[in-house]
């Protein structure tokens, strides 16, 4: 069974390798800037006030980059299968359609898990060098981003199996994820306007974010489990008929 996963790796590894190179470059840049705060031309107290925000951003940016690259890699592998006639071969091998979809879902989980571990390791080294105070918040945000990546991966599968181009898949994906997320955030901001007003410009963003996560941990974890189950169900039940349709198309 792992042969199918190996195939996906060989076919789609380019965007992932590119993302790893970019993450390495970003890490180097973040070290360069962070050293500048301590020893270089950013040692003034005004400049050093930006350190918490920078620390969190340094943690977040690589994971956002990873998010884009890995989702694109997953979509790309599905689209490439169609273009290269791999599906003809796939449907002649000893694997059921159910297993094809389950393997793909497993790949999504595996890819995000590997990415999360990689990101945490990168941030762990950063934290070990410069202190974990802000990095801890960054890692929390990173986990949130990786979780969102997993949801995006899973939701993208039915679209990828049904579409012919990457643009179409990304367009549909944005339509069903970005717009509702934006509406949700805006709704939350409008209903919690009073709470937001309490935040003063001098408040430490790191502390505020940690506090928010702590206060809403139960709700967030429950929501995460429900969302994950829903996204997995969407991926499975949305992709299975699409795979069957692809099989029929191979027969025409």
């Amino acid at each position, binding site marked *: 069974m792992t*042969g*199918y996963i190996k195939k996906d790796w*060989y076919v789609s590894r380019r965007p992932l390798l590119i993302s790893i190179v970019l993450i390495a470059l970003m890490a180097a840049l973040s070290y360069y800037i962070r050293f500048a705060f301590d020893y270089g031309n950013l040692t003034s107290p005004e400049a050093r006030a930006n350190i918490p925000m920078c620390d969190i951003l340094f943690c977040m940016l690589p994971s956002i980059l990873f998010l884009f690259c890995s989702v694109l890699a997953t979509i790309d592998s599905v689209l490439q299968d169609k273009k290269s*006639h791999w599906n003809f*071969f796939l449907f002649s*091998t000893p*694997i*059921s359609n159910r297993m094809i979809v389950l393997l793909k879902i497993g790949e999504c989980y595996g890819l995000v898990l590997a990415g999360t571990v990689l990101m945490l390791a990168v941030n762990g080294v950063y934290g070990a060098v410069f202190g974990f105070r802000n990095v801890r918040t960054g890692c929390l945000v990173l986990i949130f981003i990786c979780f969102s990546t997993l949801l995006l991966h899973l939701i993208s599968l039915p679209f990828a199996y049904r579409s012919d181009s990457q643009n179409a898949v990304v367009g549909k994906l944005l339509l069903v994820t970005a717009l509702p997320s934006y509406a949700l955030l805006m709704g939350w901001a409008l209903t919690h306007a009073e709470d937001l007003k309490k935040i003063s410009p001098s408040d430490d963003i790191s502390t505020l974010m940690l506090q928010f996560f702590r206060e809403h941990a139960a709700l967030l974890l429950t929501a995460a489990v429900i969302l994950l189950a829903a996204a997995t169900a969407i991926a499975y039940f949305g992709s299975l008929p699409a795979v069957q349709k692809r099989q029929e198309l191979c*027969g025409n």
Partner: protein
Amino acid sequence: MTDYENAIEIENLTKRYDGFTLQDVSFQVPKGSIMGFVGQNGAGKSTTMKALLNIVKKDSGNIRIFGLDHIRDEVEIKKHIAVVFDEVPFHDVLNAKQLSRILKSIYSEWDEHIFFQYLDRFSLPVKKPSGQFSKGMKMKLQIAAALSHNAKLLIMDEPTSGLDPVVRSEMLDVFMEYIQEEDHTILLSSHITSDLERIADSITFIHDGKLLLTEYKDDMLYRHGIIKCTQDEAAAFPDEEVVSIRITDFTASVMVNNRNNPIYAGYTVDPAPLDEILLYYVHAKNLRENSIHENSPRSDSPHAGTRTENGAAQEKRWQA
């Protein structure tokens, strides 16, 4: 799974598409033999092969492979099948080494040693992406992959089309070697009848979604013959013996299906090559269908009712 007589058994396979129907196709491929599957483009060869693999969902009929039901035991059957498609199904970025790693994890009986032996024999580079291969090299790669997991049944859809004669001959030798194992079977579709004459044990001929002929190749070649005679002589041959008659301005070539019949003693009966046999059968079928159409009671065609005393033989005539 070892106790089976026919590697493939197809009974009354029917699949309907808009504008095309594969209708009641039945044939068997005995274990240890090579069956040539012939037909024009769009005749239904690929549909039949895809129905075998359950890629095409049949409307009715039964298919058994290795004695097992092709749907119920699909995964088990596919472990022992290798398929060669007319289009190479591997990604262009993959090289032979990567392909071997992939297939090793898909087929439990994958033999890396045999695969690399084939690559060496076919002079295929191991680390070059297959996208940079010529068409012949890609097909060789596909065939090498198909032959390297000890498949009991090799299903090939036009594997030699587009290959030059030298490579084609090389591939046919490889297929002959593969079939030396007594439980290995090949179903091979091809337009190149000379290839089939060389290696096939039996021939199945399909036309317009219907089975025209399925027979051992040697019997087929032994039975059929071409008689060159006048048109009047041709019209006198017994209808049931005549496949069809090709007429020119002054002469006729008659394909007969029992050339050893003593009634042809006064004629020279030439042996018929496979492609000629198939050609005459196609014309016979087309003429029969036209005749049925023209002679139907509701037909108001000016050609309707041309049946004569030599009626059927008359209907089997076609202009060269």
